[in-house]
């Protein structure tokens, strides 16, 4: 009897759980099949809202697939499937996500989505995910709802809040609730409390909410909102300062990367190397080639592509530099201005060669996943790729500094540049040192190209965009001094970014150039001038 009872209870439980699920499943399927007949975006949107109203978390993956454009309709029987990829694709059941067959792309039509549809999918999914099992998903859903407040979701948020145990998630939910209240018709007292919560957050989104509330309310509430806006603005102004410094450092590190190779070929060796930009370009194209090879033969290694490209770019550009030094520049020592002409010719040839080999159009260099996205410190957004470039630039700088000061090659290099004949008498093979120095400078330009491929066009014109800035940095910092290049690059970067908000991008750049011209009048040999008799030679 007991056993019987147990079984019966168990069966009952199973059934009671199953029966509504089955029924819900059927009605869900009905709704989903409506996608096949939706003729325009607004009809599709209606179905999405309908699915959202079911409150069933099972529709989340389906909606996500729709947002990514993976929901397709089989032409012959108007059945809806999730299908990813090109060519022959596997069809997944939209609700259970089990494989139920396959079809070619031609047999399917994609259900089109546009921005407003994607928005409503995001909001719907956000509402549904509030009850998700994983706390991070709940938190993400709450943040989405905060950034895209929806008064209709207010009940759902409040239910979720009541059930929430995790304090961090609860806080996010409270923020989302406050945001939703702003747009709702709740009484002013609740809105007033919401203002305080939102003002405490102090981000841009919060400011947006407050401004919107201020615009739509009257009396005390309006004043309270205005006061909160003023407070938020003060904090934001402070953070903005920090943001500008960061932008400046980031621009400075790009300039540093572009200029540091030139600091060797031009700064140390005195070659007015107009082909420097093309060495950067070579580095960027090496990255492209490496990524192409990885894409076709070992897609799993893609995140390592930059790491693989670095040594190759260094070697390729270095070899090109070596060849240029041996083939052309060594005949021109003592005639520095003429190196300008020869390297100018070389730069034309290299540009056209790349144009012929790779075509004149931009080439795609992808970003490894670890370099995508951003994180926030307070209200400062720092993107991973900019941060990586800053770190990378500094690393290159210090490694180079170490190489010049602590290795025997560095010692020989400095000996040769300071007193060639003396160095030669001490048994240093000066021609070889020259060639290796030029190769080093070019190689470093090459690895700069790997980094710059992440933020700029990979095209034959890549180098031209950096050559003038590079010369400015080296000259401003002081020819022949690596520290000068570092300080010069960062100073110009930060100056540029502080001028930009006031003067605009163009005028800001002009002002920086004028500043360099005036600065050179004051210190004719740059920031960190070399002292001694050598400079007069």
């Amino acid at each position, binding site marked *: 009897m007991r056993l019987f009872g147990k079984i019966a209870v168990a069966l009952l439980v199973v059934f009671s759980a199953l029966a509504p699920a089955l029924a819900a499943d059927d009605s869900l399927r009905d709704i989903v099949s409506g996608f096949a007949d939706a003729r325009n975006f607004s009809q599709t949107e209606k179905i999405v809202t309908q699915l959202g109203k079911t409150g069933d978390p099972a529709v989340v993956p389906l909606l996500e697939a729709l947002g990514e454009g993976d929901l397709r309709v089989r032409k012959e029987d108007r059945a809806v499937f999730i299908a990813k990829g090109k060519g022959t694709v596997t069809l997944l059941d939209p609700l259970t996500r089990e494989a139920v067959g396959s079809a070619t792309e031609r047999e399917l039509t994609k259900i089109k989505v546009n921005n407003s549809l994607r928005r409503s999918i995001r909001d719907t999914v956000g509402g549904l995910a509030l009850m998700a099992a994983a706390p991070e998903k709940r938190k993400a859903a709450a943040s989405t709802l905060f950034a895209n407040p929806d008064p209709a979701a207010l009940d759902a948020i409040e239910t979720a809040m009541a059930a929430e145990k995790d304090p961090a998630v609860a806080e996010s939910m409270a923020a989302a609730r406050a945001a939703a209240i702003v747009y709702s018709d709740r009484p002013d007292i609740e809105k007033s409390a919401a203002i305080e919560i939102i003002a405490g957050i102090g981000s841009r989104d919060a400011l947006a909410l407050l401004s919107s509330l201020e615009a739509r309310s009257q009396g005390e509430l309006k004043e309270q909102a205005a006061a909160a806006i003023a407070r938020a603005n003060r904090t934001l102004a402070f953070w903005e300062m920090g943001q500008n410094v960061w932008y400046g450092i980031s621009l400075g590190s790009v300039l540093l990367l572009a200029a540091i190779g030139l600091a060797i070929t031009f700064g140390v060796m005195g070659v007015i190397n107009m082909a420097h930009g093309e060495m950067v370009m070579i580095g960027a194209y090496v990255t492209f080639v490496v990524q192409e090879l990885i894409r076709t033969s070992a897609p799993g290694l893609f995140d390592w592509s930059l790491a693989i490209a670095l040594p190759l770019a260094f070697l390729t550009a270095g070899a090109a530099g070596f060849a240029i030094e041996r083939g052309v520049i060594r*005949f021109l020592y003592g005639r520095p201005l003429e190196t300008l002409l*020869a390297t100018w*010719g070389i730069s034309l040839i290299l540009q056209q060669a790349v144009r012929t080999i790779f075509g004149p159009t931009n080439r795609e260099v992808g970003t490894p996943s670890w370099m995508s996205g951003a994180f926030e410190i307070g209200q400062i957004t720092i993107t991973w790729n900019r941060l990586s470039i800053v770190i990378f630039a500094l690393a290159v700088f210090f490694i180079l500094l170490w190489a010049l000061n602590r290795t025997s090659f560095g010692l020989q290099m400095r000996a040769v540049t300071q007193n060639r004949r003396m160095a030669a008498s001490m048994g240093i093979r000066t021609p070889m040192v020259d060639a290796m120095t030029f190769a080093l400078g070019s190689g470093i330009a090459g690895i700069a190209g790997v980094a710059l491929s992440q933020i700029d066009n990979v095209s034959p014109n890549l180098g031209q965009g950096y050559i003038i800035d590079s010369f400015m940095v080296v000259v401003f910092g002081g020819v022949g001094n690596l520290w000068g290049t570092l300080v010069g690059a960062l100073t110009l970067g930060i100056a540029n970014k502080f001028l930009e908000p006031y003067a605009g991008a163009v005028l800001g750049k002009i002002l920086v150039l004028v500043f360099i011209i005036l600065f050179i009048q004051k210190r004719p040999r740059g920031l960190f001038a070399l002292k001694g008799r050598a400079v007069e030679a």
Partner: protein
Amino acid sequence: MISRYLFENGLSPRILALVAVILAAAIILPALNLALPESHPLHVPTYMISLIGKYLTYALLALSLDLVWGFCGILSLGHGAFFALGGYAMGMYLMRQIGPRGVYGNPLLPDFMVFLNWKELPWYWSGFDQFWFAALMIVAVPGALAFVFGWFAFRSRVTGVYLSIITQAMTFALMLAFFRNDMGFGGNNGLTDFKDILGFDIQADTTRAGLLAASAVALALGVIVTARITGSSFGKLLIAVRDAESRTRFLGYRPEMVKLFAFTTSAVMAGVAGALYVPQVGIINPGEFAPANSIEVVVWTAIGGRGTIIGPIVGALLVNAGKSWFTGALPELWLFALGGLFVLVTLFLPKGIVGTLQEIAASASERRKARKADAEAVDGEQASPVGAE
């Protein structure tokens, strides 16, 4: 009278021959274009006339650079700026000459101002409807810029690559400034759609021929001025500054003043070249300020032979003729040819084409002299010191 003045003031026969050739071109080319029918084998097509006219202005630009670089050792990577400023001054005059014939029919405002909704002419455009004023500005603006720039730079003893780079910064900054539409110089499109100059239709064959002649005359004048400066005792000072600035200073001269004079004169010449260039190509835009253009001028000068008067002219003509031909004949490969040319000339003709030829001629005549001396020595049974230098 004139020839006596020139001879007595020490213009070498070689320079005079050059001037004569240029002036002859000024007369003969337009004559061949205008007087002969198109079917005649010696007829010079109009297309060639404006092309050669353009080359001549480039030659004057290269010559002006040679004055500061070849003779005074100041490598300016910003000479294109002076050229472009002269060009803009001329362009503004030509724009004002359009009058109500613009597309919007506004009698005062150039078209680009009309569609940017400008209501009145900016103050710096006033006066440019008068040719004399424009002509004054053509020399005054580049001259003044060079004077101010040089005044600061040379007094601060900015030399060598530092000077080169700040001249580059100057032209780059000007380029960015002129790109700005708010500056009132037509932004990226620059000034274009000119109708007439001094009352002559700018598209008429006679006007083109006249402009070619004017360019040739300007070039001839440039040659005379350069020759007079470099041939005088002041020219010796220029070379002294070029070869040993400190020593010149210690001898009591003021190198900064010498440089300033050369730089300003040169800028004025470049400005005149720019002014003649604009009506012949029909457009002036900020692209002319591009640092690459200025570097190209350096390349012409170097290829022709710096430190000579004929060299930059030959270089400018050769490189540009080559460019015109290559871009038509080998559109895909011409940069290889041009780039290769730069490398080869720098490697094998370090003094440029003219410089190398002169060297060959000089060593040949030296050998001749030496032989003659040998012969004399045999005759007179005594050694001759000729050729010791």
